[in-house]
């Protein structure tokens, strides 16, 4: 499995480097620009947590078929491919979370002279009431764990979606590709608008189960771990019978 893992991690290295290089460039350019122009800027908060998670979602989508075809054609079994993919996602999510935590710290330091700019970690965005408690090393570690879990889940979600798309017969591929964004960006908001009370109840239940309403971090971690396990099981079912087309 080591060889497969080395290949997958090596391939994703570029995504990692590009993403953080772009972030660094944007923030460096922003702060240098602000210091040169000396304009009054309005207050606001910044967090890079979610953007990283979405980068991982897209990486998961693009990774599935490329890595599957490359590894299967080089004598790897589907089991090894899946195990290697899970390890890749795990390692990538943890490294991503660490880098994101460090990046956030760097931005926080750079933004110290701008009192009206708040730089939040993912955990501070999700649990604003715990803002003060989540500073320092413990806060950094808890944020890292949460970011890694969120990143891992979204990465795996992308991987699963791509896997389902890959396995679908040709005539179902287009409807699937259309239905997914339509459901997310049209049908769901429509339901939310038409049945606000039902939607609010649903969101409330979800936030309670995830421990966000009660500020219970353990419950949040647990819900992400369960989601990761469920997504892994579903992904394995997809990979197990996938064929080279």
């Amino acid at each position: 499995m080591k060889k497969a893992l080395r290949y997958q991690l090596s391939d994703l290295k570029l995504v990692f480097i590009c993403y953080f290089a772009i972030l660094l460039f944007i923030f460096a350019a922003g702060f240098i620009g602000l210091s040169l122009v000396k304009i009054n800027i309005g207050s606001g908060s910044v967090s890079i947590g979610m953007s990283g998670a979405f980068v991982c979602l897209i990486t998961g989508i693009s990774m599935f078929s490329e890595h599957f075809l490359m590894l299967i054609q080089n004598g790897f079994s589907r089991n090894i491919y899946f195990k290697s993919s899970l390890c890749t996602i795990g390692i990538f999510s943890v490294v991503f979370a660490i880098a994101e935590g460090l990046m956030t710290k760097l931005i926080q330091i750079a933004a110290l002279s701008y009192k009206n700019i708040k730089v939040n970690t993912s955990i501070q965005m999700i649990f604003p009431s715990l803002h003060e408690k989540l500073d320092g090393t413990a806060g950094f570690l808890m944020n890292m764990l949460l970011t890694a879990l969120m990143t891992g889940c979204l990465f795996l979600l992308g991987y699963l979606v791509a896997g389902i798309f890959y396995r679908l017969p040709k005539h179902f591929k287009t409807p699937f590709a259309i239905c997914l964004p339509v459901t997310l960006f049209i049908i769901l908001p429509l339901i939310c608008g038409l049945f606000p009370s039902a939607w609010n109840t649903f969101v409330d239940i979800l936030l309670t189960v995830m421990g966000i309403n009660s500020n219970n971090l353990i419950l949040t971690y647990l819900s992400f771990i369960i989601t990761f396990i469920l997504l892994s099981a579903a992904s394995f079912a997809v990979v197990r019978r996938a064929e080279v087309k």
Partner: protein
Amino acid sequence: MKGIEIKGISKTFKDTKALADVNIQLEEGKIYGLLGRNGAGKSTLLNIINNRIFQDEGTVTLDGEPVKENEQVLSRFFLVNENNLYPEGMKVKEAFFWGKEFYPDFDMEYANKLCKVFELPKKRKIKNLSTGYQSIFKNIMALSVNVPYVFLDEPVLGLDAYHRDLFYRLLIEKYAQNPFTVVISTHLIEEVTNIVEHVVIIKNGQIIKNESRDDILNGGYCVSGPATMVNAYISGRETIGEDTIGGLKTVYLLGRPDDVLPDGLEISSMDLQKLFIQLTGV
């Protein structure tokens, strides 16, 4: 038994029966020719052997070990086919690098040498290569991996005559140095007649011929001459096909010709391509 054993393999795609109860054995250190018309089931069979697609029924084993999802076995196989399964942005030299990572016996020096011989640009992305050069790249991979079982599905697709000849010569050279099992699936039968040792002919998903090349070629002959004389000669003999041009007729027969032939008739040896056409024709 040493080698690959294929037992009772069947595969159906929707309403098309691609393979129906296929049974063959592929021995170690032999060159096989897998012949069949378009859609006969050659690629399906090679894909099943290489664990790329799943069979509906039957088993494939190597030295008694099941092949399906078995990495120990699969690491001894290498299949080249017409599809480009390499990542979009991968360059030739990167593919060689990973070839070396995945196959410990991959001969990088030999691969580089073949790149020079075929004038394959190593810095070029695989997807940007022409069809012919993509075939060359895949053939170089196949010749450099040094695994005991190599499967070549249409290896000379898009190759000009010079490169085809070069490839066949290199294949024979490699085989002579260290024999390995090669299964060549191709439509250019005449070109591989002198390379293959064993011929497997597949028609509508079924194996209709599975014999050594020499047995096949010695097992039949062609007789040609005026139609009336040929008709008289073939009466009571087993024929597999015939061609008629004007008053001249050529008939393909199984068995051995008589020592003495009537004047006006000509005997020639069976040609693998002719035999293939006769056997696989409607």
